[in-house]
Structures are given as structure tokens and as C-alpha cells.
């Protein structure tokens, strides 16, 4: 009887230890910044930049080259909009219950690294480039936090 009781007690103790280990809660992150940002998620931003071939050029090839550069510049602007946001200012002027003037100003100020042009097409004087950038909180810190 005594032996049975001792075995039961030992089994219960072992069960308690094992269940205690398995029910251990996840430790909070040691670095407080880790708690602020989700470092696991990588996100790809894709934009399509467009550029127009200028009319007065030395040759059609130059027009295409300039259209491509304008398209890349437009693509960078769109990436900047996604990564940094846009500052908008708007003014409406109303006189005698009529809209006289309406102005909307949008500004982007950005620093972009490691963007890639993944595709490009030229059709009817319009150059279009597909641009991509992969970003995560960790990557952002590596590139821009200095």
C-alpha cells in the first residue's frame, strides 16, 4: 500500500514538472524595439512609373532614353509616397457663394535605396517601368536608421 502510494506521488510530481515546462509562457522580447516593430514581415512595394518622350530631340533614340529616365523618376516618386507618405496642402477660395479658386499641393521628400526596375515597356510615346522594393522593419533600420 505504502509502495503504491509512493509511486503515485512520484508520478504526480513528474506530471507536475512536465506540465509546468509545457505551460511555460512566451518570454517577452529582450530588446524593447523588438516589441515595437514586427521584424518578421517583409513587404514588397510595386509601382509603375510613366514617362513621356519629348518632342524636340536629336534622335528618336534620345527621346526613348529620356522617356525611360522620366519613367524611373516617376517610379521613385511613387515609391517615396508609399514609404514616406505625402504632405498635402489645399486651399479653396469662395467668393459670393461661388468657388473662385482651388489649389491642391502634394509634396514628397524621400531617400530611397535598393529599388529595382523589374520590367519596362515603350508604347505610343509612353515609357512605363515596373519598379519594386522589398522592405521590412529590420531592413528599414539597416538602411535608414543612422
Amino acid at each position, binding site marked *: 500500500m505504502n509502495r503504491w502510494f509512493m509511486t503515485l506521488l512520484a508520478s504526480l510530481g513528474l506530471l507536475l514538472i512536465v506540465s509546468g515546462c509545457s505551460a511555460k509562457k512566451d518570454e517577452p522580447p529582450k530588446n524593447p524595439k523588438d516589441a515595437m516593430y514586427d521584424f518578421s514581415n517583409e513587404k514588397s512595394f510595386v509601382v509603375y512609373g*510613366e*514617362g*513621356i518622350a*519629348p518632342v524636340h530631340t536629336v534622335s528618336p533614340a534620345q527621346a526613348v*532614353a*529620356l522617356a525611360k*529616365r*522620366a*519613367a*524611373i*523618376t*516617376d517610379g*521613385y*516618386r511613387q515609391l*517615396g509616397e508609399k514609404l514616406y507618405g505625402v504632405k498635402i496642402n489645399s486651399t479653396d477660395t469662395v467668393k459670393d457663394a461661388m468657388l473662385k*479658386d*482651388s*489649389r*491642391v*499641393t*502634394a*509634396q*514628397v*521628400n*524621400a*531617400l*530611397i*535605396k*535598393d*529599388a*529595382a*526596375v523589374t520590367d519596362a515597356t515603350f508604347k505610343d510615346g509612353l515609357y512605363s517601368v515596373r519598379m519594386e522594393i522589398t522592405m521590412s522593419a529590420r531592413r528599414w533600420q539597416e538602411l535608414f536608421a543612422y
Partner: protein
Amino acid sequence: MARTFCLLVGLAQLLYCGDVFWFSYKIVTVNSVVIHEEKNIALAMIPYEGKKQILCELPLQNSANLPKEVFLRKHYDTILPCFYPLSTRLLSHNEQHIRHGNDRIELVIEPVRFTVDFKDEFATINAIR
């Protein structure tokens, strides 16, 4: 005396910084059309020991044995895409009125030191930072 001094300075520069160049670029577009472009390549005046980072390998060959600076200036448009992934600063200003709009974008590739190595019909561009 002055001539010898200048020659010495030139020689020292060729010896120590002959292979390092500066690159920078600026483009301004208005309503999706390029209105201004600045392409800069210049020989570095001060030697700099930094970390090399391979930017790209291009199928370019200096068969005419041109000086490197002349060669790079000649092929500026070919090597330009290599530098886009580096620090690219952007300033955009878009203004919309009732009847018209004005969309201006300024893009600047900040000055960066680089070298070019020719090997087996390929030119390797390395940024030095």
C-alpha cells in the same frame, strides 16, 4: 620650380588616386518630361581607403585604350543604372489648380566614389564607401 611642383602633384595624384572616381547625377522632370539633367564623373583628388561594394558587371571593353575618365564619360548612360540602388534622394512637388496642373520631380543620386576594373570584355563597377 613651380612647373616641377605642379608636375609632382599631378604625378602623385595619378599614382595614388588614379583609379578612384566620383559619380553623381541629377534629373528634373516636369509633367513627366525631362527638363534638366546633370551628369557628373570626376577623378577623385584625395586617396580614400574604403570598403568595396560590387555594383554591377557590364559588357564593356576599353578596346581603344581610352583614359578611364574619358571612357566612363562616354558610357555614362550605360553605367547610370548601376548607381540607382544607392542613395537616391527625391523631392516632388505637385500643384493642381482648377484648370491646370504642374508636377515637378527632382531626383539626385548623391556623390559616391567608385572604381572600374576591366577584365575579359567586362567592366566591373565598384562603389567605395
